[in-house]
């Protein structure tokens, strides 16, 4: 960095000996020329600045990229005295903090009188954007190249096309090559008067999802002066294919949202499914276990503000422990005394849920808490121009499946799982065989509540964390359990995802609330047909 500064100064000295703006400067070798052009920037007129940008690009190429970016952001200044070019960040207190354009070295504070802005207008900005795209295309990473081509699709002038051809010859592959071919086809369709060529171009464009393609085809179809009917028909066909694909991806997006909602429902319901399956009681405080998990995440982030990236990894076991131990306490303290009275259990656990909510309100606040999303969970995975999935939903979907798998393993392979299954199938018989049902009850309740806590960690990334977070999940979770069939984890999985997907597919046509109601009514009707859910437990009970 210092080396570059040094260079600038030395060039400045050289320039003192030369008349500024001399034609000689432009014909000089690239390295020196970039610096000399830079020296002309301070005080140049807008028109002159435009020319200078072009020269800089020719001379400096990719090296000049930071300069153009700073300029585009309107942060390029020069020091009045030394004519040194710097980047300036304005703070809220109206002070000006300088830094080097080509690096991050801080240059200290300036007053507004010491510096002057290098002005840009809209024309210059678009020129800068083009220049940046060109630099990215020829020298950038694959992602930068792709974005550069995408930007050019909207404005396919000769200059851009030449650039794309150059890029193609210099060797690109995959996605970028496809986009360049697409651009060539678009130009061919636009410029060519030969029917076959144009049809061929439409063939390439057909089904491509980039908005520019669609716009061009749409214009062609709407163009009343277009004489070539075959071309127009082909364009219409290509458009239809595009809309078909967009619709397909729209459906795919709905499906993803549905699966995402389903994963949340699964996480919330799976703990309930275990406790309800084994003990036949509904824990109305189940939603509050979810809430406790979310608050645990919040507390962990407050305790370790430096380790936000790992906070969720710590929060998962912590939330399991917090909610799990509260669950065991509830079981030992209250539910044990209500053995065989499931309706009273509903009331008692509802009371507990009120107490927990109020406790959280008193300890924290009635307001929502701010839970930070770690950087690895934000952003989205762009699959094509009309379909992308956000990372947080994707991870939560995977997380829910992982939890589900872990639980299945616990229930099928461990001795606790064996006992749990025995008690859920026939409590008295299990007891007679020496299973300590009391112990199993407590453990089951702890496990179910712990998983609710883990669900809370996941939910803290999707919704607001407040005292009422859990309240809305109890009905939905219960619906999932009922739909899937009691005492059956696979049923919970299928139930969660089908309710989630059904909800999201109904939503666009009738709104979220009505979709919710329809699903509810549908479920009540479903129970008419299959009172024991999708996957009923087999047995010989009379009722």
């Amino acid at each position, binding site marked *: 960095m210092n080396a570059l500064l040094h260079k600038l100064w030395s060039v400045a000295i050289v320039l003192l000996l030369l008349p500024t703006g001399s034609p000689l400067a432009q014909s000089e070798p690239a390295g020196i020329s970039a610096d000399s052009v830079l020296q002309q920037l301070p005080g140049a007129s807008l028109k002159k600045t435009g020319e200078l940008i072009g020269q800089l690009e020719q001379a400096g190429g990719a090296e000049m990229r930071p300069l153009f970016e700073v300029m585009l952001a309107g942060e390029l200044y020069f020091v009045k005295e030394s004519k040194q070019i710097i980047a300036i960040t304005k703070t809220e207190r109206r002070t000006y903090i300088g830094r080097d354009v080509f690096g991050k070295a801080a240059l200290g504070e300036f007053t507004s009188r010491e510096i002057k802005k290098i002005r840009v207008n809209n024309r210059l900005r678009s020129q800068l954007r083009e220049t940046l795209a060109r630099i990215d295309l020829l020298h950038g990473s694959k992602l930068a190249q792709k974005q550069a081509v995408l930007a050019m699709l909207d404005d396919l002038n000769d200059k851009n096309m030449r650039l794309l051809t150059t890029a193609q010859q210099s060797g690109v592959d995959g996605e970028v090559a496809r986009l360049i071919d697409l651009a060539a086809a678009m130009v061919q369709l636009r410029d060519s008067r030969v029917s076959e060529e144009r049809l061929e171009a439409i063939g390439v464009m057909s089904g491509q999802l980039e908005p520019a393609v669609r716009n061009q085809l749409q214009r062609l179809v709407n163009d009343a002066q277009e004489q070539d009917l075959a071309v127009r028909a082909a364009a219409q066909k290509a458009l239809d294919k595009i809309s078909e694909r967009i619709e397909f991806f729209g459906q795919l997006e709905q499906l993803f949202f549905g699966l995402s909602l389903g994963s949340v429902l699964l996480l919330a319901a799976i703990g309930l499914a275990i406790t*309800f399956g084994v003990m036949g009681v509904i824990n109305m405080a189940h939603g509050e276990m979810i809430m406790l998990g979310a608050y645990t995440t919040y507390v962990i982030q407050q305790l370790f503000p430096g380790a936000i990236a790992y906070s969720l990894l710590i929060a998962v076991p912590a939330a399991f422990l917090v909610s799990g131990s509260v669950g065991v306490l509830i079981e030992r303290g*209250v539910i044990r005394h209500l053995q065989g009275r499931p*309706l009273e259990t509903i009331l008692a656990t509802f009371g507990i849920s009120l*107490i927990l909510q109020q406790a959280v309100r008193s300890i924290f606040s009635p307001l929502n808490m701010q839970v930070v999303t770690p950087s690895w969970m934000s952003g989205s995975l762009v699959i094509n121009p009309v379909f992308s999935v956000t990372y947080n939903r994707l991870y939560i979907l995977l997380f829910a499946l992982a939890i589900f798998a872990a639980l299945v393993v616990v229930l099928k392979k461990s001795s606790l799982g064996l006992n749990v299954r025995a008690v859920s199938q026939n409590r008295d018989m299990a007891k007679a065989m020496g299973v300590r049902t009391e112990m199993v009850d407590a453990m089951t309740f702890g496990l179910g509540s712990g998983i609710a806590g883990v669900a809370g960690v996941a939910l803290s990334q999707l919704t607001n964390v407040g005292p009422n977070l859990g309240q809305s999940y109890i009905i939905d979770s219960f619906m999932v359990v*009922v739909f899937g069939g009691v005492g059956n984890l696979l049923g919970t999985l299928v139930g969660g995802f089908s309710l989630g997907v059904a909800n999201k597919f109904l939503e666009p046509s009738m709104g979220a609330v009505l979709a919710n109601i329809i699903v509810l009514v549908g479920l*009540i009707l479903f*129970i008419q047909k299959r009172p024991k859910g999708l996957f009923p437990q087999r047995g010989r009970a009379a*009722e």
Partner: protein
Amino acid sequence: MSVLNSLAQASSRLLAAMRQPGRGTSWLVGILLVVTLAMSAANLLLPADSPFYVSTYTITLMGKYLCFAMLAMAVDIVWGYCGILSLGHGAFFALGGYGMGMYLMRQIGDRGVYGNPDLPDFMVFLNWQELPWYWFGMDQFWFAIFMALLVPGTLAFVFGWLAFRSRVTGVYLSIMTQALTYALMLAFFRNEMGFGGNNGLTDFKDILGFDLQADATRVALLLVTTFLVVLTFLASRTIVQSRLGRVIVAVRDAEARTRFLGYRTEHYKVWLFVYSALIAAVAGMLYVPQVGIINPGEFSPLNSIEVVVWVAVGGRGTLYGAIVGALLVNYAKTRFTALMPDAWLFALGALFVIVTVYLPRGLAGLFGRATELMYRRPDTGKDKTTRDDGLSVAEVGA
């Protein structure tokens, strides 16, 4: 058919009960009537500075409590006598209330903020051009009352018919009822529903031409409420003491056995559920003019489940326990929320836990055990399941 027969019998017994109130519970009717009459007289006849003067606020508060008592009775009939734990009775209450609210809304006429003679204020605010079809006729008192009974009754019938026919019982049924009221709450929060959305219906002016703010109207409403509470109480007691009532208790204690004996248990349950829903609706209708507002919050699951705890505190399966429980808990709520607003939810939560764990039969259970020890009436054996104090031979918990 047996249901109809039983209903006919029940009505004849109602008349008998009116003439000769049963022992043990008539004191409650007496106290209710005496207290409300005394309060009314004290409010209307005494000057405001008299030490015995009862403020209009207290009158209204009492009226509100009695509406809740009626709602609690409705829950007690299905839960205490038939083992159907409904966590959604607030829905029927609120639907009845909305029926009355619509009538009161139409009575405002052009005295609203926007002065539109036909449209309620919130519709003018939403730029609606004309009254939705379901608002027509609601300016007629008799029609509004009819609708306020018909809608909750039909809802209870359809829901009950669907649920009981497929033998949805116990925990399943409880959560279904909660889901029902939750869904209705979501629906009524929507502005497009045409019921005032979030704000509900309010700013009522008068009922049947009487000013709602006037003391006399308030007292009259209290007296009407008391009268209907007493009437409901007597009617319900007659029903549960009849042959029909005994079948209902049998359904609670051993539904499968009752069915095997040849009773169509689901029919009994459906009709009892509808009866209970109608009582809840009447309570809602009386509640709205006294409180002066009805909004979707009344549908919230918490409200419905609170009613259940009133019944549990008073003692389920006794009817009078429901009234006592509703009055006590609501009085406590009024005092508590004024003194320590934050502590109320703690107290309510603790009440849920303590009553269910330690007092499964509520205060009536305590009281009943005490009187039993004192009097020790000889057992006739025949009427074992439905004695006046409602303590059944079966274990608590269905």
